[in-house]
């Protein structure tokens, strides 16, 4: 960051410009309360809302995503939207950001009815959204992305130095930054989102909608991103945060709105809420905190999956057993080699040496199909990219692994298929409008349960589940945990790969902690503490082993 005396004056220049541009808005804001007063019932003590959503409804075809929701967003406050997956919180965020238009109801920006035709239109009104799907140009640098389309120009040429000066000034003012010349596609997701936020700031946004990415970002990235919020708020910005992480979010929220099944449960001061009260309101019931008892595998239970000295790219000699009825977790930091082990086991990553035994017999040239035939099924890490065929109905996705059994001479016996699938969907409580519903229409949690339905149908001996609850709401997460425990109780071996410490501690019998492609520690799941687990993941390998 250049900070010489020469530079100090110059960074101010673009911001003087910016102020000049926002001046009418500031005036508008000053006039706001008067306008608000004109609408009648506004309490003079309460500031006029920055943006008011009045009786908003939104439906997609027959599905009602939002039903008569009214929320007020106050200036300079952090407003958090919470709810289960599919409750409509993202939809509401998108309506604020102009990504979606409501079917009914209206938006009042400082008391005036507005209608956003696009995110760009919303941005012209000072509202920017940072969405779950990143919208940066990966090939361009951070500064180029930030000023994309608004570059300082001199008859068609970009004034690079001026661009850099403005960028630095912007980072200074925001209180955070990204190296200006960094190619955005090579940055990690949290940094990319910083670029997006800077871009919003460069466009003089006053209200930012942050839809917290639940599946694409790791937990530490989410935390980094969230750390920016106080500095944004101190700039006087209004922030709408769509989030899954209740506890952390509650700390920084000023206001909170809870949604359930597209309806507003309540909206109000965050100080009045606790994590438990939020969960209860989101689910419409109190969440039973206790999971079913983990019953340990029988002492003589045979190993259903054995990995012997497995080496692959990112896997440096890993050996372990999973016994029938046992839940073994592979824990460790991102990049410790957990997913790599899973990939090497199922054959999607080339094995250099070592062997994998399913039910005691070694299996070479492993492919997902051969492993399935031997009794090893897998829940892949990313349900959308590696799990589901989104264009096909629920029924076909559930039956995909067991079609040979559901067919005769290659002809699919659809009656049998329908019965089996309906039964397993019912058992796993996958909420769909029917087995023929489009897979795309399911919420994240139900899509994940659908993957479990596929696995349950194939009746495996061992299940390898990679991040089975990522991007899933609390309710679905709970039922997936119950299901995994139940599967183990029925005698299946489970290899759980998870970066979620709570999850690992809650359901695993045995925890194998990985570092640098090796197993560095083994903990007993019933006695291990979070400190032990985190310690083992972080500590120097030699010390951890001793």
């Amino acid at each position, binding site marked *: 960051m250049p900070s010489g005396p020469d530079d100090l004056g110059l960074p101010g220049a673009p911001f003087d410009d910016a102020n000049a541009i926002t001046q009418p808005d500031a005036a508008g804001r000053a006039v706001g309360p008067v306008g608000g007063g004109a609408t009648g019932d506004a309490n003079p003590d309460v500031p006029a809302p920055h943006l008011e959503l009045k009786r908003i409804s939104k439906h997609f*075809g027959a599905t009602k995503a939002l039903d008569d929701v009214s929320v007020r967003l106050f200036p300079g406050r952090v407003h958090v939207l919470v709810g289960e997956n599919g409750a409509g919180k993202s939809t509401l965020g998108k309506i604020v950001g102009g990504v979606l238009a409501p079917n009914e109801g209206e938006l009042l920006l400082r008391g005036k009815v507005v209608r956003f035709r696009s995110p760009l239109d919303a941005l012209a009104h000072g509202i920017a959204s940072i969405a779950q799907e990143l919208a940066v140009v990966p090939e361009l640098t951070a500064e180029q992305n930030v000023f994309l389309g608004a570059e300082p120009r001199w008859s068609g040429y970009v004034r690079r130095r001026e661009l850099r000066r403005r960028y630095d000034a912007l980072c200074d003012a925001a209180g955070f930054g990204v190296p200006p010349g960094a190619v955005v596609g090579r940055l990690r997701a949290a940094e990319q989102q910083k670029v997006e936020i800077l871009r919003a700031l460069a466009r003089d946004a006053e209200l930012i909608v942050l839809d917290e990415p639940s599946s694409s970002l790791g937990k530490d990235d989410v935390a980094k991103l969230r750390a920016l919020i106080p500095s944004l708020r101190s700039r006087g910005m209004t922030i709408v945060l769509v989030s899954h992480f209740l506890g952390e979010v509650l700390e920084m929220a000023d206001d909170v709105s809870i949604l359930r099944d597209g309806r507003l449960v309540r909206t109000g001061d965050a100080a009045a809420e606790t994590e438990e009260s939020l969960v209860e309101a989101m689910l419409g019931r109190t969440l039973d905190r206790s999971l079913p008892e983990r019953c340990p595998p029988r002492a003589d239970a045979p190993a259903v999956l054995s990995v012997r000295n497995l080496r692959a790219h990112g896997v440096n000699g890993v050996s372990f057993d999973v016994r029938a009825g046992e839940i073994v977790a592979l824990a460790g930091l991102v990049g410790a080699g957990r997913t790599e082990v899973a990939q090497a086991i199922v054959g999607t990553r080339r094995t250099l040496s070592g062997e994998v035994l399913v039910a005691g017999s070694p299996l070479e040239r492993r492919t997902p199909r051969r492993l399935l035939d031997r009794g090893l099924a897998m829940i892949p890490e990313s349900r959308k*990219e590696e799990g589901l065929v989104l264009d*096909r*109905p629920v029924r*076909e996705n559930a039956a*995909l692994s067991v079609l040979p059994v559901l067919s005769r001479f290659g002809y*699919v016996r659809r009656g049998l298929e329908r019965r089996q699938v309906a039964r*397993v969907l019912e058992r796993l409580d996958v909420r769909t409008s029917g087995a023929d519903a489009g897979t795309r229409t399911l919420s994240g949690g139900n899509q994940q349960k659908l993957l479990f339905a596929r696995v*349950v149908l194939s009746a495996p001996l061992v299940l390898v589940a990679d991040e089975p609850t990522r991007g899933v709401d609390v309710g679905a997460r709970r039922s997936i945990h119950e299901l995994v425990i139940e599967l183990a109780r029925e005698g299946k071996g489970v290899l759980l790969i998870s970066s979620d410490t709570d999850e690992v501690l809650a359901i695993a019998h045995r925890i194998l902690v990985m570092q640098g492609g090796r197993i560095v520690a083994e903990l007993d799941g019933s006695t291990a503490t979070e400190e032990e687990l985190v310690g083992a993941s972080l500590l120097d390998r030699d010390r951890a082993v001793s």
Partner: protein
Amino acid sequence: MKSAVEEPLLPLEPGGPAGDGSRGYGAFGRRRIGDLRQSGILIPFIALFIVLSLTNTHFFTGTNLLNVLDQQASTLVAAAGETLVLVTGGLDLSIGAIYVLAGVTAAHFALVTNPTFAILLALLVGLAVGLTNGIVTAVFRVNSLIATLAASYVVIGIAGLATGGNIIDDFTHPSFGNFSRTVFLGVHTSTWVMIFVVVLLGFVLHRTTTGRYMYAAGGNREAAQLAGVRVRQVQILAFACSGVVAALGGVIDTSRVLSSPSVSNEGFGLAFAVLAGVVVGGTSILGGRGAMWRSVVGILFIALIANGFNLLGANPLYETIVLGVLLVAAVAFDSWTRLRQG
């Protein structure tokens, strides 16, 4: 794990709903949102059919309609194969070249040996090219557009070399024409063969495990593979089918007119016509979406336009323009529906 599903599934939770698991799921699922594309091509097809019936007395006659079907027999047969390839997530441009080489092979060997042998040999040629396409695409991971374009050049080259650029005629061996020109129940065998192939491949696509795997592989290759689908095998199979039926198309036409297709004219023409029809029908070039009936309606739709131009005496030069506009409209419609689903 063969009998896993035949056995009762994992025990249901005590007190949980048991018994008739099919409860609540009707035999026909509720229509999904955004199913505009379900009927997409049917409406314009029926509209065109009615307009032509009303405006021209010669249109809605058995002779004319059967004639249209007969003329389209080879195109429809090839389209059935192309549909499998597209659904699986590939693209087969070599069907025109296979059509030519198979026609040439059949025409030549019908002269020197007997028609049955000639036809079988032509189909084997198609199978060989199709398998090669499949292996190059699935195993060596060459983009199928490029792989089959390359195959087209090679195959047309071979056909050109074999014939010296001439057309082989079988007028001296009219028995070869029996394959297409025999009339059964008032309809040419070429049409019967076409119906058989379309129904057979439609059955494979919509009612068998193979068809399911094709949709899965085309819809999400990665997921299909991890779910235990042998994706490569399915892809190779689709290309092999496409090769055989494209060859069958060549045999049908060669037998119908008793002379081999022209090497210079029809190499790419058929591939484009088939692709246009299949895509206009609503099968996606991005894989994973489509249906056999769509291809049939799409091809016939284009055929009706041609037939209409012919019957109404309109300038046939406009025909290709209309076709081009239609094609873009169909693909734009596909993109639009995808966009709406987000």
